[in-house]
């Protein structure tokens, strides 16, 4: 087990690299991920097929910004797969605000939150940030969004505008198929990029194949 390019994310293997994070709740797993014990520390495997953030790290993205002590706004938390790894990385000093709108997924997420005291579940529509702005800190270090919606770029811009610190990092996972099923994916990614660049600096962009089909990840920062 060795340190990867990113803070508190570990990797193992050469040909087929596997990612790991240190388990914040030793003895408990979130989904059926495998666990490795080394030097009395427990590491959880991070599956790139289930998590777009893990996929983009393996694809060589140059910045994720998430580190020990970060405050993260996570939009589209779903059942808490990626969220649990983000919670591992930020540790007890950091905090994750996990927004999810579907009650079905939220039920699973609540069980994750009960074990992990650094995730706050929030049952809100990410399209309406005014509704949850009183429920969280004024500004955050990271805005991460993974929502399969047609207007995902607009939702992301709205949230970045409201919550992201000036020096913070925004991460946006785009699912081409939910913007337009018929259009070619790269055309959609281009459109999204243009929309983002009107207000933000796009500092990296990675396609997530072969881990995820027709997905890509954008890393943005605010203008200086």
């Amino acid at each position: 087990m060795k340190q990867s390019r990113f803070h508190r994310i570990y990797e193992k293997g050469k040909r087929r690299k596997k990612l790991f994070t240190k388990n914040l709740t030793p003895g408990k797993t979130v989904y059926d991920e495998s666990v490795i014990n080394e030097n009395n520390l427990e590491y959880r495997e991070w599956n790139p097929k289930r998590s777009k953030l893990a996929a983009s790290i393996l694809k060589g993205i140059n910045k994720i910004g998430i580190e020990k002590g970060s405050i993260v706004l996570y939009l589209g938390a779903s059942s808490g797969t990626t969220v649990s790894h983000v919670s591992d990385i930020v540790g007890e000093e950091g905090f994750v605000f996990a927004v999810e709108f579907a009650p079905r997924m939220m039920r699973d997420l609540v069980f994750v939150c009960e074990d992990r005291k650094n995730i706050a579940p929030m049952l809100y529509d990410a399209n309406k940030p005014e509704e949850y702005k009183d429920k969280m800190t004024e500004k955050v270090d990271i805005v991460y969004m993974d929502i399969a919606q047609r207007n995902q770029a607009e939702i992301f811009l709205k949230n970045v505008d409201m919550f992201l610190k000036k020096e913070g990092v925004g991460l946006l996972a785009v699912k081409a198929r939910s913007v337009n099923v018929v259009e070619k994916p790269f055309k959609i990614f281009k459109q999204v990029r243009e929309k983002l660049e009107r207000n933000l600096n796009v500092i990296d962009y990675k396609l997530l194949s072969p881990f995820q089909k027709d997905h890509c990840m954008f890393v943005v920062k605010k203008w200086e």
Partner: protein
Amino acid sequence: MDFEKYYMENLKDTKQKLKESVKFDDFIVQAINNIDEINRVVNTLAKRLRDWYEFYNPEFSREVYDHEEFVNAVIERKDKKKKDSMGADIDKEDMKPILDLAKGIESLFKLKKEQEKYLEKIMEDNCPNISAVAGSLIGARLIAIAGDLKRLVLFPASTVQLLGAEKALFRHMKTKAKAPKYGVIIKHPLVARVSKGKKGKAARKLADKILLAAKIDYFKGEFIGDKLRKEVEEEFK
């Protein structure tokens, strides 16, 4: 920073909201999905039963086409073997698992009937107009595909006409394949019985009326379901 406050507050809020989020739509969706699932399972199991049973009495299996009838006949041992049957003589010991399977399938049929009764009742109570126009099963299936009643109401009628035909629709949009004319409403007796050339027309009309009915149900209006149904019935006699 003091995150404890955010944690406790949000967790409490979310739990309360989840508690309040359960609506009758959810029960409709689960019930109809379960009924469809039982149908699938029963079909697979009944096919296996026939396969297994045919060692003993293949002629009888071919005589009775309906799965339910066949299962009941096997359980009640009404299956007289013909004298010149090509079925083998089977020990009691080997026959028992076959009969047990038949009993299991029978209980699934019973479960399905009970759940259909339940679904009919909640549809009748909450969506009387949809039930009258579309029937409780098809109405529930439409709600299940849409997600809940609210989302169904927000669809245009042309979408409702094609709900359940997504695969064909996207194939049509991506390639030059033919456009589908109907989704789950093809099973509605009104659409199913009209002649082939008019099915699309009937489906379009019916989808329109179903959506009207859904809107009335959503906003808790008066009952005019039977009138709506009659309109479609008269046009496609």
